[in-house]
């Protein structure tokens, strides 16, 4: 009887082999591509950056949300509905954990190898760390007038919804992923024409500069994540 049972058990385990055990995982290198120091945020303003750095952490890659939707027929008996709030974000299917202080004007730097599960991706998110602080310094030229600036901000916010369109086939994974930053967009919300301190130097405490700089840095279009085929 024991032999019979072992045979049954073996058959059951054979069934397991025939089934997909889970999602395939691949490692894909991620690199950061810096920006040009010459920035044109618009509105007649041009900026020459001397220094720009930000500290970010934990790149997470998300699957598309579940598109499940249903029509409900009228009924005498009410029916329960799903718990709200859990259908909008897709699950995290890939990630690269770590903390990096990025020189936004320097050379491309490798960040490491991300772990990606097979399947579709739609978005990414990235944490901006408060320490070391974000720094931006240089000269903005407004209508021909140079305005030097030196900005430091301790931002602790998450950048969510970074577009990341990829369907990962483990047989043909991308060679790499490139994270890049658009400083034209990041600095486009700052009011470069107004110097509330009237001291000739724009700082983080001048008016709404702190808020607009933060808004621009964590704004979704500021960041791009793309596969390199």
């Amino acid at each position, binding site marked *: 009887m024991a032999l019979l049972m072992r045979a*049954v058990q073996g058959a059951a*385990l054979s069934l397991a082999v025939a*089934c997909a055990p*889970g999602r395939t995982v691949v490692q894909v290198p991620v690199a950061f591509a810096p920006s040009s120091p010459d920035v044109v945020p618009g509105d007649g303003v041009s900026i020459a950056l001397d220094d720009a750095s930000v500290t970010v952490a934990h790149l997470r890659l998300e699957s598309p949300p579940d598109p499940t939707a*249903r029509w409900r027929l009228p009924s005498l008996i009410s029916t329960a509905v*799903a718990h709200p709030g859990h259908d909008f974000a897709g699950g*995290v299917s890939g990630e690269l*954990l770590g903390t990096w202080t990025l020189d936004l004007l320097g050379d491309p730097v490798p960040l490491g190898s991300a772990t990606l599960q097979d399947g579709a991706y739609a978005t990414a998110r990235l944490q901006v760390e408060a320490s070391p602080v974000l720094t931006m310094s240089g000269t903005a030229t407004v209508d021909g007038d140079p305005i030097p600036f030196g900005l430091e901000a301790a931002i602790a916010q998450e950048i969510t919804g970074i577009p990341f369109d990829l369907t990962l086939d483990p047989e043909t994974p991308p060679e790499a992923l490139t994270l890049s930053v658009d400083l034209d967009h990041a600095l486009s919300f700052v009011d470069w024409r107004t110097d509330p301190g009237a001291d000739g130097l724009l700082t983080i405490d001048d008016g709404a500069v702190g808020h607009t700089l933060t808004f621009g840095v964590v704004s979704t279009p500021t960041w791009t994540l793309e596969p390199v085929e």
Partner: protein
Amino acid sequence: MRSACRCWGCYPSGPEEDRATPRRPLVGWQGPGLRGRGLAGAVIAAWAWAWACLGTAWAEPFEDGPADDAVVVVAADASDPVGGRHLDRAAVEATPGRTADELLRAMPGIHLSAHGGRGKAYQYFLRGFDAVHGGDLAVSLEGVPLNEVSNVHAHGYLDLQLIPTVLVRSMDLLPGPARGGAGDFAVAGRADLGLGLDQGGGVLYGAVGSDRSVLATVAWRPEHAAPGTFVVVEGDVGGGVGTARGWRQARIGAGIEGDVGDARVRAWVLGQHGAFDSPGVLREDDVASGDVGFYDAYPGSGGGRSTRVLGAVQAFGGSERLAWRATAWGGWRALSLQQNFTGWYEDAVNGDGTVQDHRAWTAGAQGQLGWSPHPVVGLRAGLSARLDGVHHQEDGVTPDGTVWTEGEPLAARQADVGAWVVLPLDPTPWLHLEPAVRADVLLVDPDDDAVAWAPVVAPRLGVTLFEGAVASGHLAYGRGFRSPDARGASGGGRLPVAISDGIEAGVRASPWRWLALRVLGFATFVSDEIVFDHVAARFLATGATRRVGVDGGVSFRPVDAMRIDADLTWSDGRYTGSGDPIPYAPRVLGSVGLYVERLALPSMNVTFGFRTRLLGPRPLPEGYVAQPNAVVDLTAGVEIRSWMLTLDVDNLLATRWRDGEFVYASAWDPTAPRSDLSARHLTAGAPFALRLGVGWRF
């Protein structure tokens, strides 16, 4: 006799624990104060003894039959569903299983997962349903509902630790669509347990197990008294195999049954108190890397304490054409569960542990009537009312059990008033019809909110062709429902109710007396589905689902006392909207068993049960598939004159099987960066363990 020694006197005691003080490590959790409650225990024991003595004097010499016949006449279902199974006491004894919960494994198409240790309710899977902790499986004891409404851990929480297995006199296991008067939680199926001591006299039983367990049972039924007259005291202590698997359980039961005029009257009360560790889950990658062993547990994995008292007074009687039954019940419940399934994922400082405290009372009554005015038409009808009061709270705790954040308490009362009518019709000798309808009004009255309510109308129909012939055909449609959880009631008004519409069609055949076959197909459509959500690490309702499947079985009985049963159930459950498979629910479940039921040999009776359970692959979230398993359990007993020798073996082949697998993100190292990637987690299935017992009848 399968239960064993659970000695009240040797049950360890401990001080009452304060919520604000650190809880002791859960390994070796001690019951909160049987010493402190020793006087109460002694009073209860004395009362129970007196009760039984009264029963001796009251009960007429019992002849098995009349009382149960009356019950059958007024039962909510007249004919069993084709996939149903009835086990009498001899069959129960031949069924492997240490607790009343585990005996439910005799139901075709069911899987029980124990991710909470020996003391917490199992997680039930039935015919493609993830019934969570009982939300889709209605279980009753002598008709008294056992599912707990709005339990803090899960709505419909089904904990059978209350019932000593020695008192399980019968089991009706009825998977499939709701029929007749089936009420709340009868979504995937239902079961009813009969309560009583099958044999007169006393039994003293003790057993020790390789899993560091000791059991003791003292049971007594006066000679010539009815099975409903009994006293049982039981103690069960064990350390388990591996880490954080200890338990302590004490159970007590007393019942009395006799005639009052033309009516048979019985009353019974059961009490249980237990404390237990919970090993929780392990990450598969941690097991693979050797960071944790297969039967280990993470620190702060949890545990709990459970206390429950349930009692009922029942009367039934009538004549050949008119029978009635009335039941009133009441009970009290306290449950405390500490758990952590995600480590430090949500909170890297305090951890994600929670403690759930639940206090509840329940009371209810039901009356049933069966009338057979004419051979062609009959009537069965019933009324029921159930009222529950719950108070619960969930707090955040650190791994040592210290409460660091308090949750919002919930206090509410919940009511279910229902009525049902069944019209059995036999228009021809070969056709039997059972149209039925049940209507309920469900009420939820939170302390701090308006009263909310919901109506339910549940039509049912059973059709049987050629009943009693060599082959009979069966068709059934039934609507089941699950009442709303009080936590979802806010703002008053109409409440959502989960409903299921199920159909099944099958054939049962018995070409020879020793062979019975069944095959059926089923489809079930549910308005709402509860799954374990890895984002919140808890159960959530996620939408409409449907299931289709096939169930088949063969029962071979070469002699009266021996049977070989083989069951196989395949089901495919999917979300209606997306077509995605319902996670966690097994697609294939099977069992093959050899059962010997009190086989009379010269100078001895032999009981034997040898069962292999086959658990097929289960779909998991994100494309994962759980491993299939095959597990063999055994029970055996020899009764020679006044002596009994028993052997129970869990997992005879010592398979390292997984009775639960879950996919979600967790973080068990608070010093490492938190990964959001989903990972496979497992709960270890019962390891190999054997238990030897000796009993003496007096």
